[in-house]
């Protein structure tokens, strides 16, 4: 089994701290990076074809190179690590940082060097209290060794990393919502352009990257772009922390080559729990489209899924079993989105609660003829008409779910009750 991001993750005592990390080659990549010109590091990241692991899959090297050039651009400049991880069904970043915090810290320092940043913020959800302690200790360890702080490794460059805990809101995981949250504002989206690389935190150039994305960086710098690109099974590069939850025997996370299949993942999870059959899956957190049993062998990577009108999202799959009522399931998803909508854009703020009400009514046996069409029409008008992508994210599982489970919807409406109860 291939282990890149998880190579240091073990239960051995002290495995998460700096001595163990350095003994296994940790911070060698940083030493290499600071001996190079920042643009050359960015070129390696570009050539590696690393794409953002937070869900959107934006090419990381391109994001880094879109930061305003240092000349003439105001300082300070920031790296913000998105460790909000509030996408339902997603727990991979916690797994990575609990097991190897220095990998993220090193990735963030290299990102800082490459983008000529002065400061880094790790925006972590409040509920990850133990993880936050681990991270703070790792940062202190790196500072004590001169890997972080003033004049890092005698390069003349200074950079600090701060940990900022959120107070809980899904929208804070959206790139510009996160920036607003760090500034002490409600996590509402900003209009783009300008993109954060031009005007982010306090109006200064800012790069926002996901935890897993940044954790890939030391390995890319250390072993090269070609090596990283070759790790993927299909077109996409690298490995991926895939995860699985629902009624499977062993829910959890695994590192696999990018482009592995749900079939492989289900095998690693020991298959379905006794008494449950596989019915469908959301492959990458709640905000993706449903896959059915016939799609289990599609490579889970950005392009292969896109070709099948699906999405990789966060890569942590939610398995739907045959005993779960699909209407209740979609009502549950709609409740999440309606509750967490920040309220900035009318279609999302007003549309999602309406969708939730309709789904609840059908689930409670109060559905009416025409409700399915009304739902699809509503959904169609939410996603494309908002500032941020989270409304579109809400529409993906609901729209694809209504289509995939249409007979269940019809049965609910015809019988005037939920056949699963």
């Amino acid at each position, binding site marked *: 089994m291939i282990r890149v991001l998880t190579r240091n993750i073990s239960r051995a005592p002290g495995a998460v701290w700096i001595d163990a990390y350095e003994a296994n080659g940790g911070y060698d990549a940083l030493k290499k990076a600071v001996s190079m010109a920042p643009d050359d590091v960015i070129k390696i990241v570009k050539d590696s074809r690393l794409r953002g692991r937070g869900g959107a899959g934006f090419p990381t090297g391109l994001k880094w190179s879109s930061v305003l050039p240092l000349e003439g651009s105001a300082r300070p400049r920031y790296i913000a690590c998105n460790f909000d*991880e*509030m*996408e*339902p*069904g*997603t*727990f991979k970043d*916690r*797994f990575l940082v609990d097991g190897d915090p220095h990998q993220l810290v090193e990735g963030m320092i290299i990102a800082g060097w490459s983008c000529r940043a002065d400061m880094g913020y790790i925006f972590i*959800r*409040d*509920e*990850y*209290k133990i993880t*936050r*302690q681990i991270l*703070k200790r790792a940062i202190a360890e790196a500072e004590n060794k001169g890997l972080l702080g003033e004049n890092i490794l005698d390069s003349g460059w200074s950079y600090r990393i*701060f940990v900022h*805990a*959120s*107070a*809980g*809101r*899904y929208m804070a995981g959206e790139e510009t919502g996160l920036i607003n*949250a*760090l*500034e*002490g*504002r*409600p*996590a509402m989206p900003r209009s783009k352009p300008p993109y954060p690389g031009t005007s982010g935190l*306090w109006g200064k150039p800012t790069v926002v990257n996901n935890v897993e994305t940044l954790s890939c960086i030391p390995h890319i710098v250390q072993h090269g772009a070609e090596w990283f690109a070759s790790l993927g099974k299909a077109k996409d590069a690298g490995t991926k922390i895939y*995860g699985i*939850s*629902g*009624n499977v025997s062993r*829910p*959890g*996370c695994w590192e696999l080559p990018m482009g592995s299949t749900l079939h492989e993942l289900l095998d690693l999870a020991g298959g379905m729990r006794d008494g449950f059959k596989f019915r469908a899956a*959301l492959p990458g957190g*709640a905000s993706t489209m449903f896959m059915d049993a016939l799609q289990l062998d599609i490579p889970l990577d950005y392009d292969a899924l896109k070709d099948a009108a699906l999405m990789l999202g966060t890569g*942590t799959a*939610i*398995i*739907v*079993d045959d005993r*779960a009522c699909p209407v*209740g*399931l979609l009502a*549950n*998803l709609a*409740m*999440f989105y309606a*509750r*967490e909508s*920040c309220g900035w854009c009318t279609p999302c703020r007003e549309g999602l609660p309406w969708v939730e009400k309709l789904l609840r009514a059908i689930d409670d046996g109060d559905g009416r003829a025409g409700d399915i069409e009304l739902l699809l029409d509503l959904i169609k008008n939410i996603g494309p008409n908002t500032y941020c992508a989270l409304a579109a994210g809400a529409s993906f599982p609901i729209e694809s779910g209504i289509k995939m489970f249409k007979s269940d919807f019809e049965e609910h409406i015809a019988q005037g009750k939920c056949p699963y109860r």
Partner: protein
Amino acid sequence: MTKGACRRDFMLTVEECAEIKEELIHSPTPRAACVDALKVVQRHRGWIDDEALGDVAELLGMSSAELDGVATFYNLIFRQPVGEHVILVCDSISCWLVGSESVLSALERRLGIKAGETTADGKFTLLLTVCLGHCDIAPVMMLDGEIIGNLTQEKIDDALKRALSSPVDAENVGEDE
């Protein structure tokens, strides 16, 4: 004793003001520390009432309305009284699939309250929350800042008993320092 008010016209204590000022030292702007400042007050008082909100706003140079806009936006800042122990039950998809609804009804039965309510003796507040990021051990709840997973009736009873017999660990509930 640091329990006295930190200013004659303030309800915040010397201790609370000192902790808020500590947050301000590390913050690029006073506003950027506002969530941390609210958490300081919440750690001491359990929730943020109007008067405390006004004091924090003044310390940060914000209007009360601006600060309330932030306070009410975030799920984990409480603008209403809560009990001594706060239980957050995940009701998102991964937990729902493996039985979060029966976890909730077990808790409601044991505590004699509905989600969103506080027990008459002020011991427990029961709240629903979004995905807690521990779907590998679903169904999950958070009690006084501690994640408890793979919930069964037995584990729920144990957790409630433990909470009653031990004082709230402020370290765990609030910030790290």
